[in-house]
């Protein structure tokens, strides 16, 4: 029964699909993990910066007539700046104000921004699905699997960005400062690191990752104001599964694994179940985590003040 369903062609195609999809999850996850891990902000409005990037790119290309690639880059850049502004204008004053309850206050504000942002997009660009196109779509067939040029570019750019981030964290002074801030922002401040600036940089990098993922998604599929929600939920899942303080490479690989689970689960489950399957995996993982850490470490962790102002 099991083997009958498992024909090699299907598995190969699912693996390839899973890999490409996973590159997107991994990239988003790495960006979100960087933001959450370093700043401690539960940045729900990540969904908004994601969507905004592709809408801005659309705006530059179509109404304003900028060539495709520069406008894609501009879209990513503009949305990354929005991410930085959100940190500077909204989160930072909130954190200073809310003290130990900062996590919840920022989560709520972030939800608010996400809701407001999505509906502002609807108001300006309309609620309907838009098609976003530029270069021609080229399909390849390799080893009996098919994929398109956008898949390849997306995977390549995701891998380059994640490796670049890992390299920055590993070998540069900036990377060491980011890691120091992640471990203890107050201590980092004492040794002369401007934690505020590090936070802004981290929001910039994280938002660029989201923007890049969004552009490829928009090219491959279509664009709509609510498109950010699902990918960002996956980014949360991936970031938490991998651990937010872990290397971006580890987060990226976790993203690919999640996507593969999602793809393979479609062998046994109806397609509508695949998303639920991922969340079931997450619930099981969190349950496992709760059981594993139900001892003293979990209590300490819960009891610690948010600390990351």
């Amino acid at each position, binding site marked *: 029964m099991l083997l009958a369903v498992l024909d090699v062609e299907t598995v190969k195609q699912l693996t390839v699909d899973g890999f490409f999809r996973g590159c997107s999850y991994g990239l988003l996850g790495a960006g979100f993990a960087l933001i959450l891990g370093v700043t401690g902000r539960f940045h729900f409005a990540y969904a908004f910066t994601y969507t905004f990037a592709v809408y801005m790119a659309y705006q530059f290309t179509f109404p304003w007539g900028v060539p495709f690639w520069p406008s894609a880059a501009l879209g990513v850049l503009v949305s990354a700046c929005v991410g930085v502004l959100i940190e500077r204008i909204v989160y930072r004053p909130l954190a200073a104000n809310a003290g130990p309850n900062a996590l919840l206050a920022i989560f709520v504000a972030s939800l608010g921004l996400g809701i407001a942002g999505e509906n502002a997009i609807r108001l300006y660009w309309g609620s309907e699905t838009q098609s976003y196109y530029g270069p021609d779509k080229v399909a390849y067939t390799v080893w009996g699997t098919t994929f398109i040029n956008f898949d390849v570019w997306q995977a390549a750019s995701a891998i380059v960005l994640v490796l670049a981030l890992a390299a920055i964290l590993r070998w540069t002074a900036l990377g060491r400062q980011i890691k120091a801030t992640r471990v203890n922002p107050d201590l980092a401040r004492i040794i002369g690191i401007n934690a505020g600036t590090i936070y802004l940089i981290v929001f910039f990098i994280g938002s660029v990752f989201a923007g890049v993922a969004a552009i490829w998604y928009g090219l491959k599929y279509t664009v709509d104001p609510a498109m950010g929600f699902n990918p960002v939920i996956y980014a949360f899942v991936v970031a938490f599964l991998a651990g937010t303080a872990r290397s971006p490479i580890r987060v990226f690989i976790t993203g690919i694994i999640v996507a593969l689970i999602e793809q393979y689960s479609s062998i046994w489950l109806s397609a509508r179940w695949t998303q639920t399957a991922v969340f079931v995996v997450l619930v099981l993982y969190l349950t496992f985590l709760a059981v594993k850490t139900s001892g003293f470490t979990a209590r*300490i962790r819960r009891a610690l003040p948010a600390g990351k102002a």
Partner: protein
Amino acid sequence: MELWLNYLDQILLYATLGLSLNLLLGYAGQVSVAHAAFGAIGGYTVGYMALNYNWNFLAGTLLGMLFAFVIGTLVALPALKLSTEYLILLTLAVSSVIIGIFTTFSELGGSYGLIGLPNANIFGWSMENPRDWVIPSLVAMLLVYAFCHRLGESAFGRVLKGVREDPLATQAVGKNVFAYKVGTFGMTSALAGFAGALLAAWFQLATPSVFGFSFSLTVFAIVIFGGMANLTGTVLGAAVVVLLDPLLRRAIHLEASTASLVQLIVYGLALVVLMRLRPQGALPEGFSIWRRITKGKPKPIRIEMLDDWEPTSSVAVHQPGAGLSDEAEAVREKARERIWQEAPVILETSGVSKRFGGIVAADDLAIQLRKGTITALVGPNGAGKTTVFNLLTGFIRPDSGSVRLNGVELVGQNPEKVARMGLVRSFQDVRLMHRLTCLQNVMLAVQHQSGENLGKLLFGGRAARRSEEETRAKAMDWLGFVGMAEFADIPAGALSYGQSKLLSLSRVLATEADVLLLDEPASGIDTKWVDTVLDLVEAVREQGRTVCIVEHNLHVVGRLADHTYFMELGRITAQGTIDELSNSPRLAEAYFGTA
């Protein structure tokens, strides 16, 4: 008119759901974004049973509440061991799974959901229009309000607030934090199921989009807008959120489609502004419109109380050793050591060891605490003194060895169980509940409160109220004991460090435990208060209670301790009077780093 009645129904039903979330989010501090999904369980049950089995609306509601309760409790088991960000994620995932399951089954209408539900019927009274719904939804809202108010503003609610502020400290005064969390999660899920069932019957449909994630966020926003742990605020929040739509449409003459977008933008931005300007919400915790009208503005805290204040204990304390010469002091110490030797052992450890990886935190500890005496634990930083407290009170489980209190084994017991058995510890870093008043902080620690028991609280008649009065009186006594009676109504977060140390001492005392472990009771407080604290600890000894202190200040140890253990690198290396210990050159070197 019909339209406004419709809005009124909607406000009442949204408020019902919001109230149940407020008990969980505002009082117990558990962030759940799955509340609408639990509502969906109620709504789908009512819909499915009505459409397929012609079940009455009330029967469906009860079944839905049961399902929501069971699933909510199951989710709570792992969820409540997690930190806030993981809890948000888990409830997000659970919400997706529940809605995902509803969307997947074609029996439940797939992504279209269940539509065309029959009119709800209560004992033969069919509700056909918004007017019919006003009374039932008002009754439902009031019922849930009364239930949440009963729980929230009682001894039960005080424990929930303790869980919210500091679960560890709440455990340390003997409350079963885990049971409270899981119970509250289950109960509020059942209430959400109740509200969801009503909503489905009112909408006459149960669809994935009605109960989707965005509805969860709406309910979440209602609670945040209104004010956490303020139930009236939640009703107000529901009114604001529901009425925003018609107001915008009428006030600025927007067409329906634009108005709903602008409404969402306004309300998204309002959340941001609210978090910035008024994070406590429209009506803050503890604010009551009724009280404000009848009693007027509360008096502001007098600043001089916080600055130039000295504790004046309500009990007369005497200083037995005051004014003695050094020799006399040494003689007195010898006498105390003899008393210690003769006193019955009340707590005894043997062979207690604990390793964290390669670090030996405790190695074969043998400690005795004797009745009516003060034992001190001294030693250099990092010797493992606080770890000993954690091992004794069940916060850390030793790898081996035994801890016996009056002959009863404590190893393997939860911290709350240990506390209830009469062994209570204080924390070096105080750990007060900042948003609770000083009196509430102390009341939390009082044992055997009927109001903490749900059955007695809801059905016990006046037992809970009587117990509450007794608790209050007891707590006032202990607050007075440390000289802080005048601070009863001031939030603990407003206190200076020295005052919070005193309050934490009062909290430990209010447990009326036989054995008290005090972690640096006199450190970090004004020197002129140190004597007050020492007097208090001595007064506690006079009451026949057993005390163990961890302390760096040898003056404090010298004055209080009847017997002293010296600890180095997780081991007890010497014991005796402080005099004997401080005359040993080796120990002096270990302690002070000089020969």
